C-alpha cells in the first residue's frame, strides 16, 4: 500500500515533469543558515562557521542527485533519454532507416493480419460444446421415400441398439420457410423441424423456458414452439439493442407461455394450430460457420405444421446427428451399420461433426494458409532489413564505440545501445504496421468468419512476437558492437 502510494507520487512527478528543485534549494539554504548561526553562537568566526556548516551538511550536489532519484522515475527517464539519442542517430542515416522501418512495417502489418485471422479460424472454439463427440449421418434422397425415416419408436430403438450414443436427433439440415402472423400481415421466418433430443445433442441449454420433451413428439400433443435468441430479439422485441427496429409483438418481455400463429396466408393445407412458446435457446449457425446466425424457430418434428411438412415428412431425418460417448472414430462403422439396418435408404455420409464444420470453412482456410505464408515471408524480410540497418550502423559507429569504451563504458552498454536503436526502429515499424493491419483486417474480415479486426489480445501477442524477432535480428550486430576493441577502433582513424 505504501509502496503503491509512493509509486503514484513518483509517477505523478514524472509525468508532470515536476521537480522540487526550488523547494530543496530553499530548504538547504535555510538549513545551512541555521547551522552557521549556531556555530557562530558557539564562538566560531563567521567564515569558519560557514565552512563547518557546509562540511557537516555534505555534498549538496550529491544530496540533490539522491533527491532527484527518489523524486521521479529515473530509470524511465534514462530509457527515454537513450531512445531520444537513438532517434537522433537513426536520423543521420535516414535512407536506411526509412527502408528498415518500411520493411518492418510491412512484416508487422502482414503478421498482425495473419494473427488476427489465425485467432479467428484456428484458436476459437467450435460452436458446439464437445463437438468431437458429434457424428452426422445423412441419408440419400435417391432411395425410396416410402418409409418415414422418423418415428418415435424407431428413434428409441436406435438409442437402445447402440451404447455408443448418448443422444440422437434428426432434423432438416436446411431450414424451411414459413411465415409468422403479426397483426394483419405476416413476416417470413425459418423453421427447423427437430426431434425431441435436438437440444440435448447440441448441448443447447434453453436460455428461457424448456427444450422439447418426448411427450411433445406424440401425435395429438399440444402444439409448442421454441425460438432462437435472434428470432426472439428481432421479431418479438426481446431485450435488444436496436429496440426501435424490433417490432414488438408482445408487450411484455417474457415470451414463455405466449401464443403465436404461423403458416397463415400460405394457401390451404398450410394452416397451423396456435402454438405456445415454451423456450428460447441460444443462436446456432445452422447454415455454415461463415453465415450469420439467423433467427430460427424450432418445431417438434412430429407436430406436422403444414402441407409442405406433410409432403416432406418422408424425407425428414435426412440429417441425423448422434452424440457419442467417446470421441473415437472407431464408432463410425457401428453407427453406419445401425443406420443401414434401420433407415431403409442408402446413406450419403457418416462423418464427424468437426469435419462437417471444417468443410464449411475449407475455402477460407486455404486463403488463410496463403496469408500465413505471406506473413512469414514479410517477417523474414523485415528481420533481414533490420539486421542490415543495424549492421551498417554498428560499422559506422565503430569509432564512437571505441571512444566510449576508452572512456570507461562497458561492453554491455555498447550492446545495449545497439539493441535500443533496434527497439526504436521496431517501435516505429510497429506503430505503422499495426495501423495498416487494422485496415487490412477490416477488409479481410469480410472474407473470413470470426475475425475480429480489433482484438487487443491478438494485437498484443503479435507485437510481442515481432519485438522479439526484431531484437533477435539485432542481436548479432549488438554482439559485434560489444566486441569492438577500443585500441583498434581508435587506431583506424
Amino acid at each position, binding site marked *: 500500500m505504501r509502496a503503491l*502510494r*509512493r509509486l503514484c*507520487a513518483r509517477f505523478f512527478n514524472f509525468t508532470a515533469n515536476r521537480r522540487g528543485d526550488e523547494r530543496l534549494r*530553499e530548504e*538547504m539554504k535555510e538549513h545551512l543558515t541555521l547551522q552557521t548561526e549556531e556555530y557562530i553562537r558557539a564562538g566560531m568566526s563567521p567564515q569558519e562557521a560557514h565552512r563547518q556548516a557546509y562540511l557537516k*551538511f*555534505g555534498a549538496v550536489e550529491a*544530496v540533490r542527485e*539522491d533527491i532527484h532519484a527518489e523524486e521521479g522515475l*529515473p530509470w524511465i527517464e534514462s530509457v527515454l533519454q537513450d531512445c531520444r539519442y537513438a532517434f537522433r542517430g537513426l536520423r543521420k542515416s535516414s535512407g536506411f532507416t526509412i527502408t528498415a522501418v518500411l520493411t518492418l512495417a510491412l512484416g508487422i502489418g502482414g503478421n498482425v493480419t495473419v494473427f488476427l485471422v489465425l485467432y479467428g479460424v484456428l484458436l476459437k472454439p467450435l460452436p458446439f460444446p464437445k463437438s468431437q463427440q458429434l457424428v452426422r449421418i445423412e441419408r440419400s434422397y435417391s432411395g425410396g421415400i416410402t418409409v418415414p425415416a422418423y418415428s418415435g419408436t424407431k428413434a428409441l430403438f436406435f438409442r437402445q441398439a447402440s451404447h455408443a450414443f448418448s443422444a440422437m436427433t434428426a432434423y432438416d439440415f436446411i431450414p424451411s420457410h414459413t411465415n409468422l402472423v403479426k397483426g394483419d400481415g405476416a413476416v417470413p421466418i425459418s423453421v427447423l423441424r427437430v426431434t425431441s433430443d435436438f437440444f440435448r445433442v447440441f448441448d443447447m441449454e434453453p436460455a428461457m423456458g424448456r427444450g422439447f420433451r418426448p411427450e411433445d413428439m406424440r401425435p395429438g400433443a399440444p402444439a409448442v414452439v421454441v425460438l432462437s435468441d435472434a428470432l426472439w430479439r428481432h421479431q418479438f422485441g426481446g431485450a435488444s439493442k436496436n429496440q426501435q427496429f424490433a417490432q414488438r409483438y408482445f408487450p411484455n418481455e417474457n415470451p414463455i407461455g405466449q401464443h403465436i400463429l404461423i403458416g397463415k396466408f400460405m394457401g390451404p393445407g398450410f394452416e397451423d394450430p396456435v402454438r405456445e412458446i415454451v423456450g428460447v435457446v441460444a443462436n446456432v449457425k445452422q447454415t455454415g460457420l461463415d453465415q450469420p446466425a439467423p433467427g430460427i424457430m424450432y418445431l417438434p418434428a412430429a407436430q406436422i405444421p403444414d402441407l409442405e411438412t406433410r409432403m416432406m415428412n418422408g424425407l425428414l431425418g435426412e440429417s441425423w446427428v448422434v452424440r457419442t460417448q467417446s470421441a473415437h472414430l472407431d464408432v463410425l462403422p457401428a453407427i453406419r451399420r445401425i443406420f443401414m439396418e434401420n433407415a431403409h435408404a442408402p446413406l450419403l455420409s457418416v462423418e464427424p461433426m468437426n469435419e462437417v464444420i471444417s468443410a464449411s470453412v475449407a475455402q477460407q482456410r486455404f486463403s488463410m494458409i496463403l496469408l500465413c505464408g505471406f506473413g512469414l515471408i514479410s517477417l523474414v524480410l523485415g528481420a533481414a532489413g533490420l539486421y542490415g540497418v543495424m549492421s551498417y550502423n554498428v560499422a559506422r559507429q565503430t569509432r564512437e564505440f571505441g571512444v566510449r569504451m576508452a572512456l570507461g563504458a562497458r561492453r554491455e552498454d555498447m550492446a545495449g545501445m545497439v539493441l535500443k536503436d533496434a527497439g526504436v526502429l521496431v517501435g516505429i515499424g510497429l506503430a505503422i504496421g499495426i495501423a495498416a493491419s487494422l485496415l487490412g483486417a477490416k477488409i479481410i474480415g469480410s472474407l473470413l468468419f470470426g475475425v475480429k479486426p480489433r482484438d487487443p489480445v491478438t494485437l498484443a501477442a503479435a507485437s510481442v512476437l515481432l519485438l522479439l524477432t526484431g531484437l533477435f535480428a539485432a542481436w548479432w550486430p549488438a554482439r559485434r558492437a560489444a566486441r569492438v576493441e577500443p585500441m583498434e577502433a581508435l587506431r583506424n582513424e
Partner: protein
Amino acid sequence: MEMCHAHVGKPDDGHTGRSRMKQKKEVKQGTLALMVLKTLDVLGPLRGYGIARRIEQISRDLLFVNQGTLYPVLLRLEQEGAVASAWGSSANNRRARFYRLTRAGHKLLETEKRDWEQTAAIIERFFEVKAEDLG
C-alpha cells in the same frame, strides 16, 4: 526497503563494492526513517534542520556523517504519506518548511517500533545464550 540509487552519478567500482555500499546505506536509511518518525512524534512539527539537530543530540553525533542525507529520507516518507510538509514561518520570521507526522505515519511508527523491538529482543537472547544453557 526499496532499492535506492546510491550509485547514481558515481564511478563504477565493480559489482561487489557497489552492492556493499548499497547495503550499508539501506540499513541506515531504514533506521534514519524510524528516527525521523519518532522525533516528529515526540516533538511535533519541525524543520529539516530541527529534525537533524534532534537526532544528532540523541545519538550524540554518532549517526550523521552528513546532515544532507536526511532530505532524501524526508522526501521518501512524504511520498509514502507518513509525513506531510508545508511552508510556515519560523521564530525569527523566516520562511521554512515544516514537517509533521500524519495518521498513516503514526501507524507506521507503531509497526516499525514493534518490529524493531522484536528484532532487538531476539538478537539480545542470542547474545545472552551460553554453551551450558544449550547443553
